Structures are given as structure tokens and as C-alpha cells.
């Protein structure tokens, strides 16, 4: 496989890229030159200014096309690859039954002031997302979806009373890094409330998380945008049932 690639417009290796941005200056010749200078500094050279439009009094919006001189080195890319098998619902149920000999207990919530339950509902609710059923559909999973604006103490208490094997937390609102603060607060509370080894698996999900930040946030796994219930179920089985927690 090629290890070096460039963006593709209509010819291999042309490096063509499209960007748009706003500069806080009115639209005139100077502004257009400024936009091209920025494009050059971003590595777009030669660049074409294809659209410029003034917004309000002192701003101009630009669309720029150009060839980017940077190269992408695929062998140096770092991502979290899926390190577990993707299983069907039936396989998940079978493994839980054989290995755990009880239902696998999952507690989910949106914590903090975040009221966006879209993510946790997509993963947990029977209805699921994009035609894929949520975790409630899995016979061998026992699911409690606590909904929105759950406090961390409420979540810890529920995890205890439900004897949760895993706790799922969804965070959508990211203003002032609320999603990171909330997650740290949550993981610290669980570390405090449970002895090591007895703590449920902590999983957070949301569209703006960096999947590499598990250590920093004190959680076991981060799921980013586009995650499906099946991936989450497969991960749970991989960690809880197979490792015999």
C-alpha cells in the first residue's frame, strides 16, 4: 500500500483542497490579497480565490481552492483501531450467557447540564439508530437509561444498585470543554466509590471526543461520532464477558 498520499481533486497527486473562512476586514482588493496570503500560509499554493462576499460591516467570507503542498504519511497516522471482533446480537447474547451466566448490566446517562439524549438514546433505546437496534434489544443485556441531566452522585448510586458491569455516558455540549470536565468528574467519582477491580467499565461517547484521551479522562473507552450500538455491545462483551470481570 502507498504510504504517502496527497488530496485528490481530479488527478492523482494534484493536492487540490477547498477551504472557506472569514476575515474581520471589509471586502476590497486588500482583503482578497489577505485571503490568498492566508491560503499560502496554510500550504495552498497556487491558490484560487473563487468567492468573496462581505458580511455586515467589517467581515468578508472567502472560498479558496488550491493545491496543498503537504504530504500525508500514512505510516505515521495515529488512531484507535477497533481491537475487538464485531459481533451480531445473537453472538453477543450467547457469549454473555456462557461466560457470565447472568445478564450483563449497563447503566447509561447524559451527565451535567447536557440535555441532549440523542446519543445515549441511539445506543441504548430499543429503537437504536439507522436500522440497528439499541442495547435494550439484546436479550442478555440489562439496560437502565437514566436520561438527561443526571448528576454524578445519582449515576454512581444507580451503578451500585444495578450492579452495573458498564456505565455509558453521553456528552454532546462542548462549550467551555464541559464534556471533558464532566467526564473527569465522573471517572474520579467512580474511582472513589468503587475499589479497583470492582469498578464498572466506564465508557463515554459523543461527537467531539478525541478517542485517544482515555488515560487523561480516566475512562476505559471513548466512542466518537458514527458509533453504532453493535460496536458498543461487541466492546462490552470483549471486555466484560471475555475477560471474566
Amino acid at each position, binding site marked *: 500500500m502507498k504510504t504517502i498520499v496527497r488530496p485528490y481533486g481530479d488527478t492523482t497527486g494534484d493536492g487540490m483542497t477547498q477551504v*472557506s473562512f472569514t476575515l474581520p476586514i471589509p471586502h476590497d482588493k486588500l482583503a482578497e490579497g489577505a485571503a490568498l496570503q492566508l491560503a499560502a500560509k496554510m500550504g495552498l499554493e497556487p491558490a484560487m480565490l473563487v468567492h468573496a462576499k462581505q458580511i455586515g460591516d467589517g467581515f468578508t*467570507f472567502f472560498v479558496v481552492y488550491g493545491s496543498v503542498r503537504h504530504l500525508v504519511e500514512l505510516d505515521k497516522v495515529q488512531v484507535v483501531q477497533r481491537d475487538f471482533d464485531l459481533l451480531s446480537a445473537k453472538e453477543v447474547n450467547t457469549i454473555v450467557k456462557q461466560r457470565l451466566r447472568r445478564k450483563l448490566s449497563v447503566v447509561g446517562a447524559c451527565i451535567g447540564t447536557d440535555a441532549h439524549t440523542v446519543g445515549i438514546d441511539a445506543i441504548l433505546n430499543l429503537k437504536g439508530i439507522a436500522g440497528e437496534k439499541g442495547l435494550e434489544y439484546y436479550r442478555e443485556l440489562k439496560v437502565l437509561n437514566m436520561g438527561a441531566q443526571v448528576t454524578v452522585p445519582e449515576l454512581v448510586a444507580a451503578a451500585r444498585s444495578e450492579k452495573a458491569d458498564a456505565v455509558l455516558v453521553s456528552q454532546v*455540549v462542548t462549550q467551555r470543554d464541559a464534556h471533558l470536565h464532566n467526564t473527569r468528574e465522573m471517572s474520579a467519582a467512580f474511582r472513589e466509590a468503587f475499589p479497583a477491580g470492582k469498578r464498572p467499565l466506564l465508557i463515554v461517547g459523543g461527537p467531539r471526543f478525541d478517542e485517544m484521551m482515555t488515560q487523561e479522562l480516566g475512562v476505559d473507552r471513548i466512542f466518537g461520532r458514527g458509533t453504532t450500538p453493535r460496536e458498543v455491545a461487541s466492546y462490552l462483551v470483549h471486555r466484560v464477558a471475555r475477560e471474566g470481570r
Partner: protein
Amino acid sequence: MKLNLDPLAVSRARELARRAGQPVVDMARSHTTVSVERAVLRLAGITGADTDGIPWVNRLVDQVRDDVGLGHGVALPVFHALAEFGDLTLLAQKAAAGSVRFELPQGKDATAARKLAKRAVGQGIKTIDRNRAQRDRLVKRHGDPKQRPWIYLIVATGDIHEDIPQAQAAARAGADVIAVIRSTGQSLLDYVPEGATREGFAGTYATQENFRLMRAALDESSRELGRYVRLTNYASGLCMPEIATLAGLQRLDMMLNDSMYGILFRDINPIRTFVDQRFSRQIHARAGIIINTGEDNYLTTADAVEAAHTVTVSQLLNEFFAHEAGLQDWQLGIGHAFEINPDLPESFRLELAHALLARELFPDAPLKWMPPTKHMTGDVFRGNLLDGFFNLVGTLTGQGILLVGMMTEAVVTPWLSDRDIALQNVRYVLNACGGLHEDFVPAPGGFIQQRAHTVLNEAIDLLAEIVDDTLLNAIADGTFGIMKRPANRGKGLDGVAKHEPGYYNPATEILEAR
């Protein structure tokens, strides 16, 4: 009428909504809440907060509740004690310090307290009346927007002093209505913060001072632009009656005010919500404020096709509760949304059918048309196209208020350029086919008509079930937006009290006098 709806079916739907809603109204009429009582004191002129930021109205109501309970209303104990202290705010301060013991006046004392309370609250209502007249004058002077739908834009920086230039820029760019989104979590605060605020999460706190500052700024914009720019905020959450009151006192023009939103999406106790909602709607009715209902939210959790009839049911309930509270049709910004999965075949025709159904069920209401959010994926190019189709349905079906969709929905809070592109999208559609609704008549018996009839019939069936089951049980069972909310649970229940014999609320007395 374009859908050829059966008038008997329509009147049956309304009759069922009335029967489903009436027991809830009866309940609301026989209960009060801490927030209703605090609203009464706000109307009587109490402002300000202690050094911890807890408003004096909270201090006062809490103290009265501790001394004599809430079930008689706070007006009589407070105005009875006032005879001794002379000044309401001073009384609140003394009460907070624990140096007042409230009691329920009897006989002549009660009559005197009643008279004082009514006079003080009457002053607040007079201010609301003056604001309404002032709005009428300004609309006459500057004019209404030239086009329908009115263009509704959101600002939300968290800092009122950042919001103001953004709102003025948005008005200059074409917004007819500015909504200042509230800080996430305000709905669960059991008090209204005080003063101008510069810190908020994903929005700006609703406070009386923030209301005043923004309304003054938009009055400036209205003069500059030659059209009256309206201001919107949110009468929802645990302080719904107080926020409605503050809106009336500061001449806000529209308020989000849904009968069930707080229950379903904020887990606020159903009884608390219905009691608070009725009072807040009576204030809105008096203040000439247009309410916006929140049916769009159901479709963000439930499927927009399968659950289409739950939107219709909620619209009919919202209409019933609104009329009962004294709101007129022109004040009903009944909500609905463009949330059908765009991958579904004929999704656009389904959207048209649903939007037209709302239009024809509520011909005299300025419908509030909400843009796609659930199926905005981060593909901003597709999002812009989807918003274009949303705008097209809006103009084709004569929507009254159009919340401008952002192609960066679910990506970032809108950038300056996102808002500009979104407005360009709206302007293109309104300019290219603003009059198309005149030509657009769905084929008799065709897909759109049939779909509308189906949704209406499903709504009627569901309403009949709700009547049998009672609305509170239906909410407990998860009928709306798949949320299950039993009447004995949820936040704010401890702030509800059943009326005791002799309950007195001067605001309700004045508002219901007409």
C-alpha cells in the same frame, strides 16, 4: 382548503383535546406552586437578590411556606406583614434574616391585606398593559416584516454584552425575530438569576436586566431598519411563571412556552408544569406575547413519520390549554418541524403533508416552523440543501415564523458566515417562490392529502385513548417523545401545593376578571 379535511373529524379532534385537557386545567386551577407565588410578588414590584444571588422573592416565599404553608397563597400573609414594615423589599430582607414570622390574617385584617395585595399586583399588570400598548405603537410606527414567514434567528454567546451586537447584526442581515437561547441548565434552577450576566453555557441566562438590555438594543435596531424587530426568550423550566412575568414587564414579544416540554425533556414534575404553564399563559395572553410551542422536540427523539400524529395531538392540546388561558389564535406559534429522515423515499412529500396539515388545522395561528436537526450530520453541503427544502416547505405551506436552519447544526454554534449562508438560503427561496403557495394545490385524493388524513385519523385515535386513560397517565406511559414521566415523580414536585380554602392570588383574580 387544500387538504379537503373532513370538518367533522377536525371538530372531533378538538373536542377530544378539550376532554383530555379539561381535567388537567381543573387540577391547575386548584393548585399553586412556589414559582406562581414568586411571580405574584414580582408583579407586586419586588426585585433584587441577596448577596448569594438568591432573589428576595425566593427568600420571602420560602419563609411564608415555612410559617403558614403555601396553600393559602403568599399574598395575604405577605401583605398583612407589610403593614408593619412598609416596604416589600425591606420585608423580604427581614424575612431572610429570620426576624419576621408570617401569619394568615383573618377578618378585617384579611380584607385589608387583600386590598393592598391587589393594588400592588395591579401596578405590575398595568406595566404589562402599558408595554403592550407601546409595542402596538412601535409596530405601527416601524412596521411589521414585509414577508411571511418572519425570519427567526438565534443568538447564544453566554454574554449579554456579546449577544447585543450579534443580535443587532442579525437584525441588519434580515432577522425579524431574535431569540436569545438560555444557558443550558437554567430550566432546572428554581430561581431566576439577577442582573446582567456574562457567563453562560451554550446560552445566556434569562434575567430581567438581560431582557431589558436586549429589548432596548432591538428598539434601536427597529428604528434603524424601519421594521419592528421582535425579541424571544423561554418561559419554560421551574421558573416558567416568573420568566413569563419578567417578559411582560420588559416587553418581550414572543416566548417559547410548551405545555409538556418541561415534563418530557427536563423531567420536571407534570403537575408543577401544568400549574406553572397555565399562569404563564395567562400572563402571555395579557401581555400580547406570541407563544411558541415545542412539538419539534418530540421528533428529535421519536421517529418523525411514525410519531407524526403525536405532534398533531400535542398541537391540539397546546391550542386547548392556550385558549383556556385566554390566548388568542394570533398568539399561537404552534410548533412543528422538518425532521423526517432524508433517506426515506418521498420524505419531502411527507414533510409537505404534515406541514400543510398543521396549517389547515390552525388556519389563524402563526405556525412556528423548525428546521432539521436530527439528520444534520456534519456534511454541511447536504445540510445546506436540506435547509433549502425546509425553507421551500415553509413558504409553500404559509408558515408564520421560520427558524433559520444552520448547515453547521450539530457541528459548531453558528459562525458569522454560517448565519450569512443560512439567510442567503432563506432569501433565495422566498424570493424565487414566495408566492408559490398560490399555485400549489395537492392532487385531490393524492399522496399528500391521503397522508394528512392518515395522520389526523391517527391523532384522533390517540386522543381518544388519552381521554380514556387520562393525559397524566398517557404522559407517564411515554406517549410523547418516548419519555415516560409519572405524575408523582420529576423535579419541582415539592414546590407544588393544593389550594386551601380561602386561597388568594390577586394576579389570577385580575387576569381572569375579563
